[in-house]
Structures are given as structure tokens and as C-alpha cells.
């Protein structure tokens, strides 16, 4: 049975809403297949606005991987803004995909990618608009299977009531496994009904089905045990790890939006995973080990991706891009290849050292040198040791001096407030660092018009990190420290205008903390907040702390726990954590030792990067059957044979570099180095 497009009902509503272009689809490289010629159909939801969701790498990769399969259809759907939501409810228009405007409720699977916990409430809106029961237990055979993935699904327990299944880790292979099992189940006449399918998913050992587990609680509110409630369900579920990035060169031809989005560039992931061991960083812990994409594949992906998309900028993504073993060759190769084509190159997530400046210089060549971003994260050497961010103040001063001396005008510094063991002094020290930066920069550049911006937000302890046991700092303390820092930054008129200050107040971090480390009881809070109007929690104009505080107090009253219990309470070694049965490969005792090393009153112990030093036995490689994959390979960005024999059959096969003859006098490629570290946002791979 073909499924009708809802566009005829949607179209009259579009003139009444803001930015209607985000709902119309029709983008270059979007895919529309004939419904009846496919048998497994995925709707991929990014639970935020189109402008944020479209550039998401995870969705972009899975969209292509699935649509390349014969008989498989994948379409995209995004959260609709409250103005359209109200109209859709009034007129009975269901949640739709932007590709063919098909109702989401008619698909076999609804795959949801969570980069941040702040997208949880938007899942409920999408389910409800799709007329899918929000509780997994109330769904019938006709409802899509609701499957979550992405970094923020590594502790899916607060969403356990709403999800049918969860994928931990890389999504590329996982979506194909799920597709295969759905097809098999449909072909066999849906044996065992919905539970029959879920059981076959759970039996893989790497797909988590929350409702096949029971959770018991102690009288004091702590978890007693999490146990499978039927045979054939493993006690622990492990993450997926993609072991050959060169075999999965996605995205090949990303969807090019007509509407404006947050990142307007072709992004290629140059490696996945990070072993720097920053103790606060969930991404660095859950994506181990490091797996590099080869320089040759990167070159081919950039060349093809630019030709297929027409984007003017290339982003080299990873958790710490300067760490690729052949980053010099990649940067120089791309800068050479695209010289004179007005193609920008950007390298987000860079680290604090001189090498980084050389690299930034190379990427910018003769272009403008506007701003560089570094993330020291903490204000003193002491606190940086606690978080295992091995950068001394002297490193930082030397690095920024070099940046200013090389013509960079602005340096942005990222920090966190509320880190474990942090004192007022650790935060106030940031002001002194910023003033030293300006002083050193003025000396190095001989100019007074240089600037430094301090950007700071509240720290949220995350599951599967050494800080998973930590007490989150309360928002009053965070706000007091931020206010004091603001005063200190403005105190000395000699630096007044040279130092900028940007901060996020502490309250949203507390809600993020509740959702990050919550258990199944938090589902009641999410549902109550959503019913009370919670939407788009990542947007300050929509976020309401008071709503969450009130809903948490009411929904959790009967359980004897509260918001503070979930956030500002330190956990002990023996406590069962809500995600202990979900295996990211990290050895629990290793994490605990690392936690103790961090908070050692005699001073924190540092852990080196296992790419360059012996293994520290975090446990991931043996547990997951994986290994570090890092170069150098010694290969070239473009194989010589390909570079010499390029004879395009049709225009779009030709790299932009070869076609756009350099106009006389135009300056070659410009560069920008936006963004700081990738914190909670996924760099791709997760469903």
C-alpha cells in the first residue's frame, strides 16, 4: 500500500510559521524512493530544529548507508518548532519526513540520534505528533520500532519507558543488522509479534531492549540490581565499534540544505575515538580506541564531497583533529589542492601547542587570520591535572604568544566551572591567565588591538567517565564563581576592552546532569515536563529551569529521591550505576582508579595517551576485540595515478579545484578555525 504525502495538508500551514523553508525538503542529494519497492523503511529523527539537525554527521552517514541498500528506504525528520506544532495539532497533520512528507507513523523504524540529553523532550513531541504511543509498552504491531543511538544514548535509562531498542556506539553496521532482522521477521510473518522482533534484536548482545530488564531499588533509593527478565537476553549489552573507516567513506554526497543551517560545510571525519584521557570527556571515553581514516581516503572524500555538494568549506572533524598522525600532510595537501578556489579549510577541536599554530598558519596561508580557539578547560595547573588536561600555563602563554606573533588577532579560550575539587581560586585564576595572555600577546605582536575571549560553562559529570561518581557542583556555587570571575576580568582597566567574557549560567547544567546520570525513574520527570510544555531544551528562549525543578519534585516525591540526589550527590564504588549493564568497553575498576587518581589530596596523577606510551589498560581493546589504528601510512592525499588521469565524464565528477580557474588578484583559500572542543556533540557514527 503506497503511503500518501501529507504535503497537501501541510502546505497551507507553512505561510503561517517562521522559516517554512526548513519543512519543504527537495534538497540537493536528498533521496525519495518508491514506497512499494522497499520492504524495510527507516525514518531518521534528529530531535532538534532542522538548522541543527541537518548538518549532523550521524544522521547524514546513516541516511546514505541505508539508502544505498536495495529494498531499504530512509527519510529524515526533524523537530518542528512550537508554532508549527500548534497548527499541526489543530489540523491533525502528523509528524512527517522532509524527503517525501510521509507520516512517520507509517515507517518500520524510527531511528533517533541523541547528541545531547537536551533533546529528550523533543522525542516525546515527535512521537506524539506521529500518533505513536509514547510508552514502548503501549505500542502495537503497527507502530514503528523506536530505536535510539548517539553519544547521549549511552545512558538511555531515563528514556527506557519510551524506547524499544538502543544502539550503543557506531551506527553504520548496527543499522544494517537491525534492517536484516526486521526483514527476516517480516518475511517470516512477524513471528512472536513485536516482542519476537525485539527478542531477536536483544539476542545479538549488542542491541539493548530496555523492557527486557527489571530494575530493583534499595530503600535508600539506590539501585539494587538490573536483571534480564526473560531467557535469551544478555546480562550486559556491548557497544558497536567500526574497525575500518576507509571501508565506510560516508557521507559521500551530503544533503545540501536550502535553508540556513549551523554548519555550512562539507565535513569529513579524519579519525574516530580519542585517547588523550581527559577525565570529563564522555566522547573521548566511549569512542575508544582511536581509528584513523587514511590520508588517501580523506583526499578522495573531500574531492568527491565538494563536487557533489558545492560547499565552499571543508571541516576536518574529530575529537582532537591535530592528533591525526598525518595531519601535516593532510593540511598541506588540501591547502595546495584548493589554492585559488576560494575553498575554506577548518580544523575544529584543536589542542594547545605550537604545532597547532603551524597547522593553522598552513590552513590559512594568505587568507585572513582572525581567531583561534583553545580549550585549557581549567584555570590552574592543579585543576588541569585533576581533569588530565595536560597543558601548563606556560604552554598556554607560549602558544598564544606565537599565535599573536603570527598575525592572529583574537584568541578564544574555553573553560569549565564546577569541576571536581575546584575552588573559588581555580576559577578566579582564569582572569589572571587571560591578563597574562593579553600581556604576552601585546609583547609578541607589538600591537594593542589584540583580543582574548574567555568562554565558560558549567561542568556536567557524564556516564562512562572517571567523573561518573562525582558530585555535580550546585548552580548557586557555579553562578557565584562566574560572577566573581566576571568582576575580576573587568577589574584591571589596562585590559578592560581586550578581554571578552561569555558564560552560561549554572541552572541548565543541573537539568542536563539529571538527564545524563538519571535512572528509569527520571522518565516520569521527562514526561511531566513535556506535558507542561518542555520543548527545545537546548535553546535558552525555550528552556525553563523552574519547570524542571517543579516537575522533578512532584514526579519523584513518591520515590524518596530528588533533583539533588541525582546531581550533587557523590556516588560510591559499590553503588550500582544505572548504566552499569551497558558496556562501553571501559573497565569499571580502571575508571574508579582514574577517579581516585584525579581527586588524590596529594595532587592528581596524570595518565598519558596510549597512542604514544604503553597501554594503561582501560579495557576497551580486549573487551571489544579492537585495536588502535593509527598511521602514518606514508601515502599521499591523492594517489598519483588518479591525480594525473583525471578526465571528467561529466562536470560533477570534476573536483572544484580543477575547474574554477584562479581569478587574477583573488586571494587564495581563506580559513577559519571555529569552535572549541567537541564536548557533548557527536562527531558522527552514532545512530
Amino acid at each position, binding site marked *: 500500500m503506497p503511503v500518501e504525502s501529507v504535503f497537501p495538508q501541510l502546505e*497551507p500551514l*507553512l*505561510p*503561517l*510559521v*517562521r522559516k*517554512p*523553508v526548513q*519543512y*519543504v525538503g*527537495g*534538497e*540537493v542529494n536528498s533521496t525519495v524512493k518508491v514506497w512499494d519497492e522497499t520492504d524495510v523503511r527507516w525514518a531518521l529523527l534528529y530531535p532538534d530544529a532542522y538548522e541543527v539537525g541537518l548538518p549532523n554527521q550521524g544522521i547524514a552517514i546513516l541516511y546514505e548507508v541505508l539508502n544505498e541498500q536495495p529494498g531499504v528506504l530512509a527519510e529524515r525528520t526533524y523537530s518542528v518548532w*512550537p*508554532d508549527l506544532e500548534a497548527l499541526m495539532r489543530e489540523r491533525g497533520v502528523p509528524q512527517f519526513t522532509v524527503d517525501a512528507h510521509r507520516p512517520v507513523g507509517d515507517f518500520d523504524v524510527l531511528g533517533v540520534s541523541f547528541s545531547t540529553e537536551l533533546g529528550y523532550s523533543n522525542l516525546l513531541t515527535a512521537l506524539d505528533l506521529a500518533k505513536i504511543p509514547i510508552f514502548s509498552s503501549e505500542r502495537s504491531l503497527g507502530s514503528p520500532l523506536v530505536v535510539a543511538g548517539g553519544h547521549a544514548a549511552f545512558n538511555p535509562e531515563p528514556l527506557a519507558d519510551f524506547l524499544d531498542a538502543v544502539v550503543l556506539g557506531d551506527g553504520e553496521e548496527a543499522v544494517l543488522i537491525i534492517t536484516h532482522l526486521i526483514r527476516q521477521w517480516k518475511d517470516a510473518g512477524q513471528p512472536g509479534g513485536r516482542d519476537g522482533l525485539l527478542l531477536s534484536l536483544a539476542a545479538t548482545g549488542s542491541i539493548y531492549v530496555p523492557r527486557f530488564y527489571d530494575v530493583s531499588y534499595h530503600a535508600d533509593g539506590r539501585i539494587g540490581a538490573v536483571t534480564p527478565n526473560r531467557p535469551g537476553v544478555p546480562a550486559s549489552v556491548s557497544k558497536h565499534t567500526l574497525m575500518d573507516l576507509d571501508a565506510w567513506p560516508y557521507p559521500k554526497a551530503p544533503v*545540501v540544505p*536550502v*535553508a*540556513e543551517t549551523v554548519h*555550512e560545510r562539507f565535513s569529513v571525519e579524519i579519525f574516530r575515538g580519542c585517547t588523550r584521557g581527559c577525565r570529563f570527556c564522555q566522547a573521548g571515553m566511549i569512542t575508544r580506541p582511536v581509528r584513523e581514516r587514511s590520508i588517501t581516503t580523506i583526499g578522495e572524500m573531500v574531492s568527491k564531497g*565538494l*563536487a*557533489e*555538494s*558545492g*560547499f*565552499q568549506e571543508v571541516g576536518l572533524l574529530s575529537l582532537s583533529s591535530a592528533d591525526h598522525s598525518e595531519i601535516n600532510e593532510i593540511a598541506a595537501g588540501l591547502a595546495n589542492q584548493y589554492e585559488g578556489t*576560494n575553498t575554506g579549510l577548518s580544523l575544529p577541536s584543536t589542542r594547545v601547542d605550537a604545532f597547532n599554530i603551524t597547522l593553522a598558519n598552513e590552513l590559512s596561508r594568505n587568507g*585572513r587570520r582572525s581567531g583561534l580557539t583553545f580549550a585549557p578547560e581549567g584555570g590552574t595547573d592543579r585543576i588541569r591535572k585533576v581533569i588530565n588536561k595536560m597543558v601548563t600555563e606556560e604552554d598556554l602563554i607560549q602558544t598564544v604568544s606565537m599565535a599573536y606573533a603570527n598575525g592572529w588577532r583574537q584568541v578564544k579560550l574555553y573553560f569549565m566551572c564546577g569541576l571536581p575539587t575546584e575552588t573559588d581560586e581555580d576559577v578566579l585564576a582564569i582572569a589572571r591567565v587571560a591578563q597574562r595572555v593579553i600581556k604576552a600577546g601585546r609583547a609578541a605582536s607589538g600591537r594593542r588591538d589584540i583580543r582574548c575571549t574567555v568562554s565558560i560553562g558549567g561542568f556536567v559529570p557524564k556516564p562512562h567517565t572517571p567523573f561518573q561518581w562525582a558530585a555535580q557542583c550546585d548552580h548557586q556555587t557555579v553562578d557565584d564563581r562566574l560572577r566573581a570571575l566576571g568582576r575580576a576580568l573587568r577589574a584591571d582597566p589596562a585590559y578592560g576592552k581586550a578581554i571578552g567574557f561569555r558564560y552560561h549560567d549554572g541552572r541548565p547544567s543541573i537539568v542536563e546532569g539529571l538527564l545524563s546520570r538519571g535512572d528509569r525513574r527520571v522518565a516520569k520527570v521527562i514526561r511531566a515536563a513535556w506535558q507542561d510544555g518542555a520543548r527545545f531544551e537546548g535553546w*535558552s*528562549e525555550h*528552556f*525553563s529551569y*523552574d*519547570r524542571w525543578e517543579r516537575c522533578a519534585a512532584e514526579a519523584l516525591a513518591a520515590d524518596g529521591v530528588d533533583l539533588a540526589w541525582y546531581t550533587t550527590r557523590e556516588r560510591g564504588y559499590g553503588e550500582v550505576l544505572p548504566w552499569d549493564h551497558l558496556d562501553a568497553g571501559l573497565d569499571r575498576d580502571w575508571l574508579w582508579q582514574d577517579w581516585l587518581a584525579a581527586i588524590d589530596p596529594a595532587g592528581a596523577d596524570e595518565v598519558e595517551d596510549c597512542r604514544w606510551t604503553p597501554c594503561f589498560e582501560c579495557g576497551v581493546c580486549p573487551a571489544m576485540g579492537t585495536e588502535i589504528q593509527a598511521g602514518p601510512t606514508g601515502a599521499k592525499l591523492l594517489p598519483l595515478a588518479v591525480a594525473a588521469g583525471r578526465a571528467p565524464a561529466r*562536470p*560533477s565528477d*570534476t573536483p*572544484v579545484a580543477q*575547474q*574554477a*580557474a584562479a*581569478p587574477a*588578484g*583573488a*586571494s587564495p583559500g*581563506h580559513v577559519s578555525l571555529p569552535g572549541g572542543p567537541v564536548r557533548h556533540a557527536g562527531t558522527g557514527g552514532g545512530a
Partner: protein
Amino acid sequence: MRFASHRDIARAVERGVRRAGLPIAYSAGFSPHPRISYAGGAQTGIASEAEYLELALTGQCASSDVRDRLDAALPSGIDVIEVFEMTSGQSAGRLDALRLEASDWEVVLPGVTPADAAREVARLAREAVIALRDGSVLDLGAADRETSPATRDDSLPSVFAELSAKFRAGEVERTVSYYVSLGNDDLAKWTVRVDAARCEVTPGKPAGGAADCVLKTSPELFTRIVREAYVPGPADFLSGAFKSNDVALLMTFQRVFQLDEPS
């Protein structure tokens, strides 16, 4: 494509040109831009059968080749109908050489009968003639109080135009400036200055960055305040949906623009 703004279209064309591999020329300077210029451009929400644009290329290309390649490279909904070369007499950047003098409009009014539409047009025509007789021009936005929500322009410029139409002289003695911030987008920031005799609404932040009163809310809420005389209540202030640093001046704002009584 009718929902795409002019900026959206311009971006799509830039990318299409790059995808098509056309040897586009770039402007000189610090941040070079592809040299593409447009004549007019339909407003957001209005479909157009023909838009005109001019590409500056660095090399000779056959017109039919440019048309085919660009047509294939653009998103569905933007078709390249015809491409012709500007002669050397028509210097680059002179799209007006095309002499676009008039355009045909088709207005679709769902749910309105032809008879009602004809009556309404006749009424407007009469008012327009009266306005001309009196030496002015009919302002359709102000004249049509009965505009249904379905055809109303929800863009911020129209909301602010409506706001300034509601200005009542003699309510304040000195000049008061308001900074209205309706989002992070630069287009969402407006400055409103009122004195005893007149009001001045300008897009963008106030000159110098400071205003007597700052008003921060969502475009939706602000639209309701202007159009439905919605008065923000304690709930709006507590939830942060509506923020201001000076409640007294806020009340002045309501008085000056007659926002305390439904229009």
C-alpha cells in the same frame, strides 16, 4: 521554493554554480564572493515563474552548456530556463539592461469566493482612488483591517510596521529608546525611539549599544503583544519568556503604542 528567502536562493545558486563547475569570477578583497547579481527577487512565500540573475565568469562558455549544467546542479524547484551572453555593450553588473518594467501577479485566496474577492478588490480600488485624490497613496497593510490570519505577513518587518502605525503622539515628554531583541539572529534585533511627536523604528541594535529599556522575548510573543494587545503576565516574566530591565518604561511602551486595548 516559494518558502525560500532571497538569501536561501542566493546560497543555493552559489552552491549550484560550484557543483556545476562553472568558472565563476570572485570579487577581490578580504573575503572574496562569487560575482552573481540578481534583479529584484520574489519575497519569501511568493512563488515566481521567472527570476533573473547574472553570473560573471572567467572564461567563455556556451550558453546552452551553462544552462544544462546549472539546471542539473540546482535543487528541484529551481529550473534554469534560458541563459544568454551579455554583449560587450552591456557592461557587467547591469541587469537593468533587461528592462524589467512590470510583473504579473496571481493571488490565490483559499476559501474566498470569486464574488467576495471581487467586492474586496472593488473596495480597495475605491479607497485607493480616494487616497490618490487626497494626495496620498493607499497603504494596503493599514487599510485592510480584515486581513485573515492566513494571508497575513508574519515577518518581523510587518509586525514592526504595524507597531509604528499604532504610535500615539503626546504620550512621552522626552525621547525614550527601546531595544527589542527577539532572538540571536541580527534580523531579530530592532530599535524603537519615541518622543512626544514621532516614533522611529529601525532594524538592528541601538547605536552605541545602549537603550533606556531592553525588551527581550520571542517573535511569537512580541507579535501577539502588537497584534492582539496581549499583556505579558507574571508567568511570562517568571518563565523568562519575557524579559525587561525597566517595567515602568515597559508600561510607557504599551501606552505609546496603544497596546493595552485590542485593535
